[in-house]
């Protein structure tokens, strides 16, 4: 007799998802755009899959009181529409167009991408740039982590096996914020070689807030903190952008894997993303 090597459960409610996850032996199946390949190729052999695609509550995207709440089944393509307003919507729209292709974006989810924690994925860095709060639900209730706490390495997060990433909250960007995205990618069917995601806020001609995130530059999402500090307090001019990009490229000074070519790419991408952000301020 053939023994089923893997069980499959199509959950109907959030509680059912948590119940199946409780013994720590199950994997969540969200968009499947990373997990299905691992399962069909046997690269991953979870004991059980809990499919969340029939849990209607998980499709909710809500924007109230300056906070965007994203549930586990909000597909990438939702961020292509003009459903989200303000500079936050602008930034998410410019990023999402680069994630895979329309059929991938019709299935793949933002929370799945965060849980997967691919070092060259865009959403984890966007979460770090935007100051996201990530809610995990498990047998002992909910806990909230920042992006810095959540991402612990390539394909590795602080999520425990019995936990579901149940909501991600992205605060709205203040008025006067310009957002920018620039990438280097060999083919649209591939993850990026590198990318910069930035959000810069200007008030009375001076930079009051700056977040610069770098994709595929470290094991976890990277913020170019020194470059951000270099921008804050000054005018958002050409010279400031060039200087911030130079500082960004000095990141992780002791890392010998950061060749001159990669540093050059970081400088160029940061400069382009900041220039784009200035146009949107």
């Amino acid at each position, binding site marked *: 007799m053939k023994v*089923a*090597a*893997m*069980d*499959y459960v*199509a959950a109907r409610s959030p509680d059912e998802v948590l119940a199946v996850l409780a013994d720590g032996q199950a994997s969540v*199946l969200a968009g*499947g*755009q990373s997990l*299905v*390949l691992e*399962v*069909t*190729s*046997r690269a991953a052999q979870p004991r059980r*899959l809990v*499919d969340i*695609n029939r849990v209607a509550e998980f499709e909710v995207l809500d924007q109230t009181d300056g906070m965007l709440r994203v549930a586990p089944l909000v597909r990438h393509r939702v961020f292509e529409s003009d459903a989200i307003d303000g500079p936050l919507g602008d930034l998410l729209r410019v990023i999402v167009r680069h994630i*895979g*292709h*329309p*059929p*991938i974006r*019709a*299935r793949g989810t933002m929370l799945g991408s965060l849980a997967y924690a691919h070092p060259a994925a865009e959403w984890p860095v966007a979460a770090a740039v935007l100051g996201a709060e990530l809610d995990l639900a498990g047998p002992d209730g909910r806990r909230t982590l920042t992006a810095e706490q959540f991402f612990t390495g390539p394909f590795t997060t602080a999520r425990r096996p019995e936990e579901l990433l149940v909501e991600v909250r992205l605060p709205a960007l203040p008025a006067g914020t310009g957002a920018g995205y620039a990438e280097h990618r060999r083919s*649209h*069917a591939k993850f990026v070689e590198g990318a910069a995601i930035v959000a810069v806020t200007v008030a009375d001609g001076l930079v009051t807030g700056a977040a610069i995130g770098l994709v595929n530059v470290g094991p976890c999402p990277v913020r170019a903190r020194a470059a951000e500090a270099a921008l804050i307090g000054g005018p958002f001019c050409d010279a400031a952008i060039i200087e911030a990009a130079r500082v960004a490229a000095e990141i992780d000074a002791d890392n010998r894997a950061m060749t001159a070519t990669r540093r050059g790419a970081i400088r160029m991408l940061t400069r382009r993303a900041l220039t784009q952000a200035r146009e949107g301020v």
Partner: protein
Amino acid sequence: MPVRLVVNENNYEVDADPRRSLLAALRADCEVTSAHAGCADGTCGACTVLVDGDAVRSCLMLAVQCDGVAVRTAEGLTAGHPLRAALPGGHELCRPGLVMLAAGAMRHDGDLAADPGQMSRLLAANLCTCADHDQIKRSVVRAASLPPGASIAAIGPSDGPSPDATGP
């Protein structure tokens, strides 16, 4: 665990080892020959079909996930569908996937077919390994803009304007 797939409005009971892809079940158990396994990792799009109206990679869905859900393949494009004109008898590896990619997008955006530039940018999502990719893509772009029921003769290679650049 038996699974019922509804493919082009026909019911099929398929053996569903939960690790089996929708693509594998379609080809082995549902008389589908149009969806192809090109890369089997989501890159090429030769396996593109409609699931619940969306164009998706059938190699990146599990058959068990589609229990009772409407699946449509190139074989099942309805009689009057303009894209039928882009499907001659034989199936190159990439053509049915391109057609289903276009069919899914046209369901979501009624104006898409009239915009050859946007249409060919969309088709850049699928790859092809033979030499005819551009010509095949052009025929899909042109068929999309035809009146329903038009014949294959209407989309000869020299017919109509060439669409814009074929995407990134």
